[in-house]
């Protein structure tokens, strides 16, 4: 995975397969660290599965016995000197958290979060997504539930709406991480 936004697409897809109605995504900058967090209210995992979920030889799918998504994210965080955590319980949803050391040369760029969110919203219009960017001073937030309330009857997949969402996210990234992360200009 060459961008954090691609990990996001992958991890959020796990939440959706777990039957989540709402997926919460947050990217928070604290001096020196970028914290990536995805939490959901899906069905969660049993302890036995959770204990081995960071192994590539653990997967919920049945076509093949390997699952690379979580191990790849863990590795992307740990090669920067950062860390990875996952919390889950049956019926209690799942929280995935990865810390990236921002000064590390091995940190992958954030990438096109807007493209990831557009893809997620387009193909899962009945699920809700909450996206948050924070930098300690300022905050950006986008909630599809708010947008849907405003739209009253117009589908969120409408191309003008989706493009508006993409633009809003790009502006949010610039506002919160511009000049803070070196891949985003201020």
């Amino acid at each position: 995975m060459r961008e954090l936004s691609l990990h996001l697409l992958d991890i959020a897809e796990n939440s959706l397969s777990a039957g989540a109605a709402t997926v919460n995504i947050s990217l928070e900058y604290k001096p020196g660290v970028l914290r990536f967090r995805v939490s959901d209210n899906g069905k969660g995992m049993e302890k036995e599965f959770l204990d081995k979920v960071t192994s590539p030889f653990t997967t919920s799918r049945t076509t093949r016995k390997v699952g690379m998504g979580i191990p790849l994210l863990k590795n992307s965080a740990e090669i920067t000197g950062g860390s990875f955590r996952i919390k889950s319980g049956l019926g209690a949803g799942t929280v995935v958290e990865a810390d990236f050391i921002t000064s590390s040369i091995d940190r992958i760029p954030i990438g096109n979060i807007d493209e990831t969110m557009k893809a997620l919203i387009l193909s899962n219009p009945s699920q809700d997504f909450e996206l948050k960017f924070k930098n300690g001073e300022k905050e950006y937030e986008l909630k599809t539930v708010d947008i849907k309330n405003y739209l009253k009857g117009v589908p969120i997949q409408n191309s003008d709406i989706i493009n508006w969402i993409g633009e809003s996210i790009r502006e949010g990234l610039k506002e919160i991480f511009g000049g803070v992360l070196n891949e985003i200009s201020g």
Partner: protein
Amino acid sequence: MKSLAELKAIREKALKEINLRDNADKIRVVVGMATCGIAAGARPVMNAFVEELNKRNIKNVNVLMTGCVGACRLEPMAEVIDARGEKTTYVKLDADKARKIVVEHLVNGRPVIEYTIGETERE
């Protein structure tokens, strides 16, 4: 930053279009979006499908995502399922191929044989 109030104008425009919309039988385009697909470039493929359909104002096609289909080496993959339920499986896609599939298959009704799994696997 953007304000939700801007959605009002977009909503009004959209409502006019909905009334004109042809509610013909839906065609589905299903893009594989598991780790394997994403790493191979499925996101630009999906977005290319959506953009090309919007550009051509085609409303009877739904673009969806699915998990791993089990043929990771052929990703990015997409299936086109027409109104009769007939399925065409496209493999090793990129954004340009996706746009061509929109034009040839979804608009003109001629599957792009050279990108299909049958043709690729014969090589």
